[in-house]
């Protein structure tokens, strides 16, 4: 049985006495290692998962688009005409030729006749003076087989068909189409009811539970968010670290490389003036006292600060990563991740989970311009990160993947320059890394037998019915299936008890079909 971290602190605090510095009190990952028998050979090498969360609900319908002309007939496999008929009139359809054309990709899973296109902003572009465009983007990674697409992923309690949508007895995710609830369900991989932990946090809990002694003596928590507090990172026994993004660094990179701010973002300022030493002593004493406070909010605030102080000490030797990152928020978040991965040995970390975020996807209006900006930022930052992992020699050990609140209605909202889309459900995800068996689609079949949904309004994959149906795809691959595939690669023990603890609904879904083998 895993003890809570709080219990551990309590014991340590007693053992060391009230005057001990809180920063000496515990190392993350040590708790259960002490309590359990350890097989140090159970985990080898290094692995990291990086969730890039598309905040606001990305319109996957314009990320991956059918561009073939194979007649739909009775196959239910939509073509480019299906797409332009739905989106052309209101000005939301992307062209497949000429300026701003979709970038063609081949999809072995779909067969040679069925071609698809990626949003043009994922391609190679000319460097810009804003230092946001610096590389060839991720379309190239798809073509190199280092990026996979998992279409129509979404929140589910059980596999769900169109017919089951109208059956009250068939369990469905609570509050479909609501940002906050669907964000939570994507990040906690559980759609039955609200819960307190995210699946990243639960993977960390399970990996620390003695079954699999990751990060023995690790100096920072297994889970790190570069984008604030997120339910994905919330665990019961493994508190996350949450630090800010890097400062911008000039492009091209200066020589010699500057000292990064990894340390300074967590270092309390001051303590150098008169009485500074005495001040630091008291500051540490108060924190050591407060992490044991009976007042819960006081205790929790002190623990957050204490985690920061420990990380501050661990980050003393940070170095800059010798790869250019775009000077965007996401670029600087991923630069921070790259720095941490670069220091993995000195931090004694062999398994890490990171959370980064790009916001602005709630495109009820002005979607075309927003998508150009957002996809460019994602593509450039993701590519820079992939390249940085290559320069660190860990490109096969680090996998980045995307999730979002939900997809968006295939039927546009508004028209003309301001055209946008409303909240929907199933959505297309990307997985990038050296261990990705890319250049293909993955996932369980939709109604048409392929992973890519039938794009017909009120069709066999549309959750909406009737004449006003707007195209909200019923997911064919659940968040659990997608997440569990990633977690398995990461090293989550595959015994039934662990899987059940991390992904309580996993038993409702087929994991054995091979449809999700997108990782080596």
């Amino acid at each position, binding site marked *: 049985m895993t*003890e809570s971290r709080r219990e551990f602190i309590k014991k340590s605090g007693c053992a060391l006495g009230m005057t001990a510095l809180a920063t000496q009190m515990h190392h993350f990952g040590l708790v259960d290692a002490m309590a359990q028998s350890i097989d140090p050979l159970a985990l080898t090498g290094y692995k990291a998962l990086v969730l890039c969360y598309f905040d606001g609900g990305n319109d996957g319908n314009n990320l991956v688009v059918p561009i073939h002309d194979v007649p739909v007939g009775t196959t239910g496999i939509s073509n480019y005409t299906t797409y332009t008929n739905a989106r052309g009139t209101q000005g939301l359809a992307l062209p497949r030729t000429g300026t701003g054309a979709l970038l063609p990709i081949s999809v072995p899973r779909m067969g040679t006749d069925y071609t698809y296109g990626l949003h043009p902003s994922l391609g190679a572009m000319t460097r810009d003076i804003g230092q946001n465009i610096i590389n060839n983007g991720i379309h190239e990674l798809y073509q190199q087989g280092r990026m996979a697409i998992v279409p129509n992923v979404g929140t589910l309690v059980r596999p769900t068909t169109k017919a089951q949508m109208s059956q009250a007895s068939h369990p469905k995710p609570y509050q479909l189409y609501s940002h906050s609830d669907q964000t939570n369900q994507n990040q906690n991989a559980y759609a039955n009811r609200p819960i307190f932990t995210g699946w990243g946090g639960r993977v960390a809990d399970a990996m620390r539970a003695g079954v699999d002694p990751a990060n023995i003596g690790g100096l920072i928590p297994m889970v790190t968010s570069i984008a604030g507090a997120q339910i994905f990172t919330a665990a019961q026994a493994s508190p996350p670290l949450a630090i800010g993004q890097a400062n911008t660094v000039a492009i091209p990179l200066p020589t010699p490389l500057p000292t990064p701010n990894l340390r300074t973002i967590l270092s309390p300022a001051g303590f150098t003036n008169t*009485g500074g030493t005495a001040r630091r002593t008291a500051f540490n004493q108060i924190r050591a006292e407060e992490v044991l406070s009976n007042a819960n909010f006081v205790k929790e605030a002190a623990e957050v600060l204490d985690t920061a102080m420990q990380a501050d000490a661990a980050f003393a030797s940070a170095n800059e990563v010798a790869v250019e990152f775009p000077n965007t928020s996401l670029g600087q978040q991923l630069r921070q991740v790259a720095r941490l991965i670069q220091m993995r040995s000195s931090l004694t970390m062999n398994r890490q989970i990171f959370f980064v975020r790009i916001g602005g996807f709630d495109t009820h209006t002005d979607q075309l311009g927003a998508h150009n900006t957002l996809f460019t930022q994602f593509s450039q930052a993701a590519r820079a990160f992939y390249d940085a992992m290559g320069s660190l020699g860990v490109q096969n050990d680090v996998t980045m993947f995307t999730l979002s609140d939900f997809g968006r209605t295939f039927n546009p909202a508004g028209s003309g320059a301001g055209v946008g889309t409303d909240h929907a459900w199933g959505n297309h995800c990307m997985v990038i890394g050296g261990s990705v068996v890319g250049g293909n689609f993955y996932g369980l079949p939709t109604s048409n037998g392929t992973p890519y949904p039938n794009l017909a309004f009120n069709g066999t994959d549309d959750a909406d019915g009737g004449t*006003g149906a707007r195209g909200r795809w019923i997911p064919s691959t659940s968040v659990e299936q997608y997440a569990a595939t990633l977690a398995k690669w990461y090293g989550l023990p595959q015994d039934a008890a662990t899987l059940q603890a991390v992904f309580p609904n996993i038993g409702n879904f087929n994991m054995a079909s091979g449809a999700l083998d997108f990782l080596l």
Partner: protein
Amino acid sequence: MFSLRRGPVKFFWLATVIFAVSPLSVFAQGDPNPNSPTPIIVSIEGSPRLLAYQALRSRNHTLGRLPAETLRPGGNAVMFVANLSLMEGEDANAFRIFARDEKGRTYKFPVIDLRPAPGQPEVYALTFRLQDEVGYWQEPIEIGDLIVRLSWRGLSSNELLLGYGGKGGKLSEEKSLKSSSLSDIKGGKVSQAASLNNVGIGYKWSGDRVRFLEQATFGPTPSLDLRIRRIGLRVWVAEQFEKPYPSPAYPYPDIPLKNTNRDDITTGCGPFADTAVYRACIRNHYTMYPLQNWFFQEALYGDAQLRHRVAWALGQIWVTSGVVNEQSSWMIAYHKVLSKNAFGNYRDLMEEMTLNPGMGNYLDMVRSTRNNPNENYPREILQLFSVGLFELNQDGTLKLNNGNPIETYSQTDVNNFTKVFTGWNFCNTGCPSSGPGLVNFKDPIVINAGITTLGNNRHDLTAKTLFSYPGAPNPTIAACTGTCDDTLVSIASYANTSLDQTLDNIFNHPNVGPFVSKTLIQHLVTSDPSPAYVSRVAGIFNNNGFGVRGDLKAVVKAIILDPEARGDVKTDPNFGKLREPVQLMTNLFRQVGVTGANFTGLSDGVIVGRTSPLGQNVFYSPTVFNYYPPDYVIPGTSLLGPEFALMTSGTAVSRLNFTNTVVMNDNAVGINAETSPNGTSLDIRELEGIAAADTTSNRLLDTLNNRFLHGTMTPATRSSILTAVNAIAANNPRQRARQAVYLVATSSQFQVQR
């Protein structure tokens, strides 16, 4: 539910003063004792074990029976509580029972029934179920002792052992456990007087007064504390309701509308030029800078503190943001709606906010038409501004159906509500603030603005089906047909009427009272209020005593005068809330003293750039979900703590560094000779004087304990700070004062408003 409850039994026993709070007795001179008695749970005679029975069908809660030393998991049981003084209507949901096991895991047991114990009128029998209702940990699986306690009105009872399916384990060794049997209680052997470390506090109820000011203002000041001591909380609240707003010395910045193209040479700031004039024009019109400065001036110095505080809270429910609404004039128009209605009626707030052009832009209502409807505003007015996602009881707890929450609305409902909100747009001609080249972000949006032909009507004229709860006004709206759609004028009339009917339909939904009440309590007082507290406030929301629903004055008064908010000391471990960054800053400034550069003049409100590293850039909420969500649970716990969403490793350090900057430096924050000559500085001189007058530094510590922590500073913290202060030479009292302020202000005890 049980219906056997008798009327409340009025008595007082260990409490020395009768405690009675009537939220409506505004003009009472002087205040009643704010302190509720501390509840005592009754033990078995001579044992630290809870006196309890397995609940029987007969409900014969006689105290004389042989108690059950172990209770059946999953079953109902009865415990006994003494030292209460209940208000009329105060029921089982005023109590929360917590248990913890050996591993430090906490469980919450649902409270089912409360009634006077037969034959013991001073004692209440509390029926509860031995089943965790939080679901954070699995149910306690080990058979053995738990430690149980009870919370009531922000106070915690004593702790006792409870045999959960059996006795045993190490918890019985805890030294703090002791008997609290009926004879112990009657013999005065159980002392439950909450202790204050209030060495320097000479006035009655000063702990409560300072806490009150933390809840109702942007921070206590010595002069405000003095004033409230003279006139009492209730008179002060009544005064606040009448204060002009903004305070006359700090009127809203008068910022004209500008072109949406900032470089427009007629109505923008153009042509672009790398000059101070151009930059200032952009900063004042196309950023929130003037509004932020005004906001902080009003918070630091203004007299209308309560309205400012409530408007700030409402603005975190009805969120718009400078991220999208980039002109300060737009956001000022929006803030005026908040502040005007902060002491008005919630229904008016709903209507004015719906028609506020900033909101219309932020949530896309101005772009929603019958042919291209946009669900953004209708979805959020329901989810975030009025009813929320799940059906609620009046006490804010979820209504359940077979154990599952009941969704308040479906996608079909959203589709119907969406229709009502189609066709509205900016009033760019013919309204007071209309002007060439400008988008009218000041006047309310109107139906079919600029539409001249009937065929171009943008409002959805079909029938709508709205909420149909019992007593719902306007559960349906008929289609606009016949003569209704003959002219644009009649369509406009239909659309306006429909909007009124729809807002009435939403406003009267039974969820609105508990939804709004709980959220406001969270912003002002405590993150996880008891259901009884929510219910009391929601009751006032539903009817202010004069048959009026939605009276925010009455609601605010009920929130800040409630016995759960009041009292010198709050011992419930879950009471209070993390200070959001804005409150952290303004409380620090106001409690020490705030001035401009070189201790001359007043702050000009420029604290700009200091809030965003802490995660709260004022008037730039990142999304409509505010800086932090109201349902945020602190990771690793089951504690509801919305503001903790802003408390990360990084921002925790930013809080320290902000404090370091303003406390340890001579230079003002934000000072800029050209644009902000004053900046904002901490005025340390008063505390410096106190440090100089008493070289033992005890008076300094007393003062800080009183002002910052209303007397709750722990002895260990006090000792740590005292040592650090006295490490500085006595002839440097300024540095001594700074040392002390830094350490108090960075303590987690101060990060939490409690």
